[in-house]
């Protein structure tokens, strides 16, 4: 073969050395590797070479990819105030180091627990910490992301209640709502949206009461909500749901849970969420890390999707150990009757989250929540002083994200965005089309990585764009 080294072997393929091939073929009694392909019908044998670029040396690959990536402008090049389900946070160096340990990085799903003990323990620790954070007792070792976790949670609720209606808030990420629909439509589920109080953004309890019934499998709320405010009527909502025999599903951003009440304490049955924010880079939106947790109730546990690591002992009882538990729920055993088809998940991202939570500890997570809330509210404080800008749109407490409305200005959100970008600042997400009733509105996100200076620069630049023209 031709390869960048000009020799007849490739660094990733040790047996590509012709003399080794000959040696192996001699032992096998064949003359050509093509004999091993003789059973592929002639008409399907590819006669041409794949139309791909010529192979490059490692240095060339590196230069090429680096130069393509350098066309991007990132959060390090400019302050970026985007969130909406993927958030800019700092990833400590120790997290990056540990998830690059090749024994973890290059291992498969721990089907042989005795030789995969390290991964199993790390994943068990992840599950345990997610339980502490959410106030639940059981967590699986990850789903693909928040959106697909929600889709699975709704299906699980439907299996448990044998009901088929799911109620979700009107204020929800459209991609999450779309994913929920795609996951649940084939199972015969229907989704209805609950209106919100136009002043506070909070769930309209009236509308919830009018829509909930004995057909309702589950009611889903998010806290903090998609638009960043804290939903406070959780006890009323929870009571309403449980009186109707439905399940209560709560979606969370775990960075809030050092300071906000965990859903387990307001009787959530299932908690989903996005844990990319715990020690994982944004990576243009993937991989993410879907949280999935539930109460310690065997009925619920047996319907959970995904892999769960359990604590056990060695057969001789001499030592604590870990292995995959409740595999009879899963596709490789139950096939079409499995609770889900998921097998590969986001395990290494879960390890990153475990390392992150271990580094921060209880104090660090509380401080993280406070820091984010300080900075986001500082941005609200400064932006709301600008003439024509209204922020936040809703009279509620906001955690990390908040709405900024430009109805009082003659610029559209898009125009504001373009002008800010010209000044080297990336504003929030335009949500005008998602919520036309909110007018010209964008969703901004501020985290611990935004400095006072970044926020002040945003406010000053915005003021200049809107007023100083």
């Amino acid at each position, binding site marked *: 073969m031709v390869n960048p080294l000009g020799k007849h072997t490739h660094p990733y393929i040790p047996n590509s050395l012709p003399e080794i091939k000959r040696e192996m073929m001699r032992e096998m009694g064949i003359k050509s590797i093509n004999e091993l392909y003789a059973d592929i019908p002639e008409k399907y044998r590819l006669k041409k070479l794949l139309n791909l670029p010529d192979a490059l040396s490692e240095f060339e690959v590196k230069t090429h990819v680096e130069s393509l990536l350098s066309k991007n402008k990132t959060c390090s090049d400019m302050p970026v105030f985007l969130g909406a389900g*993927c958030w800019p946070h700092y990833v400590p160096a120790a997290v990056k180091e540990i998830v690059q340990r090749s024994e973890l990085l290059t291992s498969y799903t721990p089907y042989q627990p005795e030789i995969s003990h390290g991964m199993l323990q790390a994943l068990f620790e992840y599950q345990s910490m997610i339980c502490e954070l959410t106030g639940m007792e059981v967590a699986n070792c990850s789903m693909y992301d928040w959106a697909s976790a929600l889709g699975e949670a709704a299906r699980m609720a439907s299996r448990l209640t044998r009901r088929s209606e799911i109620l979700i808030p009107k204020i929800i990420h459209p991609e999450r709502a779309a994913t929920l629909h795609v996951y649940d439509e084939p199972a015969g589920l229907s989704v209805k949206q609950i209106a919100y109080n136009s002043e506070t953004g909070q769930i309209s309890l009236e509308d919830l009461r009018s829509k909930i019934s004995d057909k309702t499998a589950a009611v889903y709320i998010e806290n903090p909500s998609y638009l960043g405010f804290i939903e406070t009527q959780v006890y009323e909502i929870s009571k309403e749901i449980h009186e109707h025999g439905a399940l209560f599903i709560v979606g969370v951003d775990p960075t809030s849970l050092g300071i906000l009440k965990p859903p387990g304490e307001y009787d959530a049955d299932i908690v989903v969420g996005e844990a990319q924010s715990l020690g994982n880079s944004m990576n243009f939106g993937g991989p993410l890390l879907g949280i999935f947790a539930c109460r310690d109730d065997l009925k619920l546990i047996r319907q959970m999707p995904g892999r769960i690591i359990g604590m056990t002992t060695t057969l001789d009882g001499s030592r604590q150990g870990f292995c995959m538990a409740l595999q009879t729920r899963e596709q490789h055993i139950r096939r079409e009757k499995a609770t889900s088809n998921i097998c590969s998940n986001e395990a290494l991202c879960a390890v990153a989250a475990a390392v992150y939570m271990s580094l921060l500890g209880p104090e660090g997570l*509380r401080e993280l929540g406070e820091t984010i809330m300080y900075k986001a509210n500082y941005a609200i404080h400064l932006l709301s002083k600008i003439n024509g800008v209204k922020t936040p749109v809703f009279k509620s407490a906001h955690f990390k994200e908040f709405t900024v409305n430009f109805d009082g200005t003659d610029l559209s959100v898009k125009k504001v965005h373009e002008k800010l970008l010209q000044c080297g600042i990336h504003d929030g997400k335009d949500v005008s089309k998602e919520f036309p009733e909110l007018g010209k509105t964008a969703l901004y996100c501020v985290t611990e990585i935004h400095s006072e200076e970044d926020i002040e620069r945003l406010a000053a630049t915005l003021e200049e764009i809107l007023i100083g023209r």
Partner: protein
Amino acid sequence: MEGENGMFKQAKWNEPLIFKLGRKGRKGHILPKVEDEVKRAVGDVNALIPENMRRISQLRLPELSEVEVTRHFMRLSQMNYGVDSGLYPLGSCTMKYNPKINEFLANLPTIGMLHPYQNESTVQGILEILYRLERWLTEITGTYEICLQPAAGAHGEFLGTLLMRAYHKLNGECKKRNEVIVPDSAHGTNPASAAMAGFNAVVVPSDENGCVDLEALKAAVSERTAGLMLTNPNTLGIFEENIEEIAKIVHETGGLLYYDGANLNPILGKARPGDMGFDIVHINIHKTFSTPHGGGGPGAGPVGVSEELTKFLPVPRIVFDGERYRLDYDRPYSIGKIRSFYGNVAVLLKAYAYILSLGGEGLKEVAEVSVLNANYLMKKLKEIEGLTLPYISEKPRKHECVFSAKPLKNETGVSALNIAKRLLDYGLHAPTIYFPLIVDEALMIEPTETFEKEELDRFVEAMRKICEEAYTNPEAILQAPHNTSVSRLDEVKASHPRTMALSWRMYLKKNGQNL
């Protein structure tokens, strides 16, 4: 058996659960400070939180220094086995070497610090990479368009079965076509994915050659058939020679043909699913395209489709107008979304670098050597007493071969499971066992192209010794493994309602230490 001369010995730290480590007040990370002006302007941040929503209960996480955290996870990593440790011949998992340059590139801040909703003008580099990768993958699979969004193979399968659904729905046949056919040798994900998309799974048996039984297939198809999910080469490592006839049978009844890409590795550059008549193809990036499995993920499971099905793919699609790359959401027939954003981009970037490192010739070499290695192992293992190779044993396999340890079990009591556990003692990972379901005491072995002959020989030698040992001293094997971090685990206990502990919190509760 412990400490047998010259044998592998895995690290055996007595590493407690992290909750038992540390001291109150220790800290592993210092966050950026909140500036005085920010504090002054905002006031007491906790007062901003409505009282009933403040966390009051103590967050019970461990309190550790960075030193202790690093050491803890370092020790855990040493009690784990990866592809970098040695042969990992899990059948259908394609555990190949994960090139280091790919990891380096995927960890650059120029991808890590990119937000998915950034203005398109600021993300042209990554869009170009993804767009090109799509083109390359269509070329490799012989499909028309590729969707990079699925996060894993099973996620790709789910998307594939949803596409079947959308296709039949548009033809007004969704209600009628409610069956998806899967061979009895199929991966468990196939029937599970079909069920998730609302189909009934109909199983067709394999014939005496280990391939789809054509007569049974003819009998199974009907106007209710939505499609057939097929792995080719199949899970026995055998190429479905009758693929043309199979495609014809399925297409003539109006069904679609789905290609499970778990076994794509051995036909890279040699044959293409699209050319064989497959309408939907998923690819396991973390198998065929060398990205690491990370102990279970993240992977990526792109899906390729024929021209007719492109309009159903999830939004957004990456488009190129000759000058700029754009994300196009305007697709009226799209099924919508199966996840947030655009896919596991950091994983996909590694596949991009991998394809560049090999080129067309290199990928063909990957396929050929993976097949050479599998058949070499097969030839050697056939000579071992106690093992048999079910289904025409003279026929070449592709990337994997499936042996049965049934004779050994009957004669010595040593099962496939026992062999697997004993292999661990040699510092080798076990093959996939008890799958496919059509082989008793199955050992499903896939060496991939990235292990050298010497390592393959070491595996053969270990298998030979184990089988010999089974006849002479079965006890040693029945007690295995001896050299791993922990000995055999009680998997029943882990799932028994009385002893089940799925979190530290649950463990404490069960043991009377309520919070």
